[in-house]
């Protein structure tokens, strides 16, 4: 084997593979939106293959979605080939890889990447998170790389791209520059319309708190300048979890000590600090199998070989002691008990602004499933679904809620439940969905025009999508400022019909604080929060 060439071929194969998965991931992000027909069944593909998500969901709910069985493939592949997922598949890993490459500006780093005790952080994190999951706190999504990447793209990446396209096209449209008789818009407009109608399709989205999500994303990307693939090496709980499975891999790096001249090139290009330069001390649970070391070695001393997994690999040990395990478990328990000591977490009170999407499970069960990926928010055609800050407690960070001021729940839409990768939002059929109450509208009669200012309005009633209208009006004689009498239509809410979709609040003429507001009161999913007697129960 003419070693060198085939090894760099492996590198290029790996890079192509990374590109394909990154593009597929981004394509699926773009695809997760209302598009006029049934959503693609592939939207949750990456989450289905994510063992951290499926194990965590299984631990918290003791159930397993059929799709998540695909993660067994990832587990099997990892048992055989160690962390190839990190090196070859993970789209966030690929972005980190790119950032590392950009940071090095094509130059090889000058020092060997040496093992650091901090690399055990990811093992502590995954153990801690899974312990929390066992008690029903699904914080895995905060750190899971696929969830994190998806959320960052939804909340920031896609809206930013949309903004650039839309605003630049609109600026050209407004200015309408000409070269002789030729309008620049004759090129920019068709291009813009292509993006508008084929790529983005829905109106530009915006998300509350997206700056924080974006900032964290930029931060973890910037950390690649500190250490190559910083996130993957030190933090990533999925990488940590896969590390646990990489104890007896069939794919092994062998360093031929007879050929090695200890130049250290391999350790300089190793993004994982997996000690390829130390014969017999290769760190199997750290290595991404990226082939950089093999391709760089001028002596031909490094080779990946396939050995039967029953033979114990000659390699460095995973840095995870019993003491560390106890610490991780204790940390997880401490975090979850910390999260739980609020009136909200104890279900003694309900947060009025925590209006969950239709089909969302009861709060506790919802939190046991939601991985904060943001796919529902991406799919919502009115941008109604927004990431929570602390409205749902620390546990509910970045979980979805309806903010009617921004958007409303479309009566004939159940997309959020259809795309949800973990079933936190149940995939209700439309007829079922229409009967779900998400909250209840209440008038602020001190602001409402017909109630307070003697003017006609009833936009809310006009927009109410229920065939029998959950808002009705009473004709009332009022006195105008001039002293004249007039009859106006004063709207009222019928609580037995209102579903809390929020279109009334969204359409209200008052844009700062609407004169009709939806709160989570009367939501079907939480019996403790139901306020209306009678036919409101179903």
């Amino acid at each position, binding site marked *: 084997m003419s070693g060198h060439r085939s090894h760099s071929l492996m590198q290029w194969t790996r890079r192509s593979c990374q590109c394909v998965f990154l593009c597929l991931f981004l394509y699926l992000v773009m695809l997760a939106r209302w598009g006029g027909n049934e959503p693609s069944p592939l939207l949750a593909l990456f989450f289905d293959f994510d063992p951290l998500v499926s194990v965590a969901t299984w631990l918290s709910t003791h159930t397993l979605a059929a799709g998540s069985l695909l993660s067994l493939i990832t587990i099997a592949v990892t048992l055989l080939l160690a962390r190839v997922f990190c090196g070859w598949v993970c789209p966030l890993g690929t972005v980190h890889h790119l950032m590392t490459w950009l940071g090095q500006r094509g130059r090889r780093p000058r020092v060997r990447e040496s093992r650091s005790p901090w690399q055990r952080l990811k093992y502590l994190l995954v153990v801690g998170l899974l312990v929390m999951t066992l008690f029903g706190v699904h914080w895995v999504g905060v750190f899971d790389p696929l969830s994190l990447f998806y959320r960052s793209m939804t909340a920031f990446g896609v809206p930013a791209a949309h903004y650039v396209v839309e605003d630049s096209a609109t600026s050209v449209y407004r200015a309408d520059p000409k070269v002789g008789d030729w309008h620049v818009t004759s090129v920019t407009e068709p291009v813009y319309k292509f993006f508008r109608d084929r790529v983005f399709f829905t109106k530009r989205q915006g998300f509350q708190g997206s700056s924080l999500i974006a900032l964290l994303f930029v931060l973890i990307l910037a950390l690649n300048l500190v250490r190559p693939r910083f996130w993957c090496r030190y933090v990533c709980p999925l990488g940590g979890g896969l590390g646990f499975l990489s104890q007896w891999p069939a794919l092994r790096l062998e360093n031929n000590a007879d050929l090695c001249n200890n130049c250290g090139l391999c350790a300089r290009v190793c993004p994982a600090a997996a000690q390829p330069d130390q014969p017999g001390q290769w760190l199997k649970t750290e290595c991404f199998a990226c082939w950089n070391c093999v391709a760089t070695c001028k002596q031909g001393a490094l080779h990946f070989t396939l050995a039967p997994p029953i033979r114990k690999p000659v390699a460095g040990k995973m840095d995870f002691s019993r003491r560390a395990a106890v610490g991780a478990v204790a940390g997880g328990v401490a975090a979850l008990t910390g999260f739980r000591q609020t009136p909200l977490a104890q279900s003694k009170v309900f947060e009025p602004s925590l209006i969950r999407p239709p089909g969302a499970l009861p709060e506790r069960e919802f939190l046991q499933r939601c991985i904060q990926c943001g796919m529902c928010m991406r799919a919502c055609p009115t941008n109604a679904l927004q990431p929570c800050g602390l409205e749902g407690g620390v546990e509910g960070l970045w979980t979805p809620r309806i903010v009617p001021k921004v958007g409303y729940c479309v009566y004939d839409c159940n997309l959020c439940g259809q795309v949800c990768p973990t079933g936190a939002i149940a995939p209700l059929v439309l007829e079922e969905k229409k009967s779900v109450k998400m909250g209840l509208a209440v008038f602020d009669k001190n602001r409402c025009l017909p109630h307070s200012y003697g003017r006609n309005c009833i936009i809310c009633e*006009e927009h109410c999508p229920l*065939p029998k209208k959950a808002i009705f009006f009473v004709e009332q004689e009022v006195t105008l400022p001039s002293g004249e009498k007039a009859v106006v239509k004063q709207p009222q809410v019928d609580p037995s019909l209102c579903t809390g979709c929020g279109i009334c609040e969204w359409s209200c003429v008052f844009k700062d604080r609407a004169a009709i507001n939806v709160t989570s009161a009367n939501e079907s999913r939480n019996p403790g929060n139901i306020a209306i007697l009678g036919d409101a129960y179903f």
Partner: protein
Amino acid sequence: MSTTSSRREFLKQGALAGAVTLGGAAWTETATNAAGPMDMAIARWKGGDSPVSDIAVKLTEQAMEAIGGMKRFVSKGDVVWIKPNIGWDRTPEQAGNTNPDVVKTLVRMCLDAGAKTIKVGDNTCNPAEKTYVTSKIGEYAREAGAEVVFLDPNRYRDMDIGGERLKMHPVYPEVVECDLVISVPITKHHSATKMTNCMKNFMGVVEKRQIFHQDLPTCIADITAFMKPRIAVMDAVRILTANGPTGGDLKDVSQPNIIAAGTDLVALDAFGAELLGQDPKTMETVLVGEKRGLGVSDYHSLKLKELDVA
């Protein structure tokens, strides 16, 4: 308007006339003065049970023919904006939006009349991406050769409406820049104005319209006067009789099988009011429109052609 008639157009007219005859239209003119083109035509379906799409297509064609054909309004090379009501996420059966076959037929007729580009679009209430699909108008208009336009919230421009209530107000420039705008509403019950029809349909070319609701009749008259409409086609194949403008319950839908076309939007609105069982003399939008000189409410006083189509 083009004054010369090419051979191709002549043949097309001949073919159309033939189709009309074969279709079995019986024209009963009620206007006292039949000279010159008609102001308004009411086409009623008398063909018994037929698919709604066939009814809509035939009624649209013949109502338009009766007021002088599309060529009366469209010149060669024109850019035409067809403005249906596509406001709500409702199916054609629920009668929340204009019938898609009516839109399709008008697109075809405009193209046949020599129009260069037909644009179809509305400032919708529910997301346009959804209403264009559910109403089927997007699909049908595109198939007929129109450009389906999603109104871009950033592109509205403040324009001098010069109305009683509305002075400077954001209007969608692409609509105003067209050579012809055809208002194609569906006749529906409306909780605030009792009816939404031809004039109110223009609320779909402006933004910031929530404030209209404090004095809808005046604002609607303002915006109609600003748009200077030359023609409207009123879709009453299906109408929504209660719980408008959204509807949703099929019990609130009736099927009069009527299309009216005309140059007087006040008159068309008065006729629409009658279809909804209202007295036009109590319709504030009609009264204000008439007072502002936008048309007459007594549509019988116009050159009116009523035809039965089978």
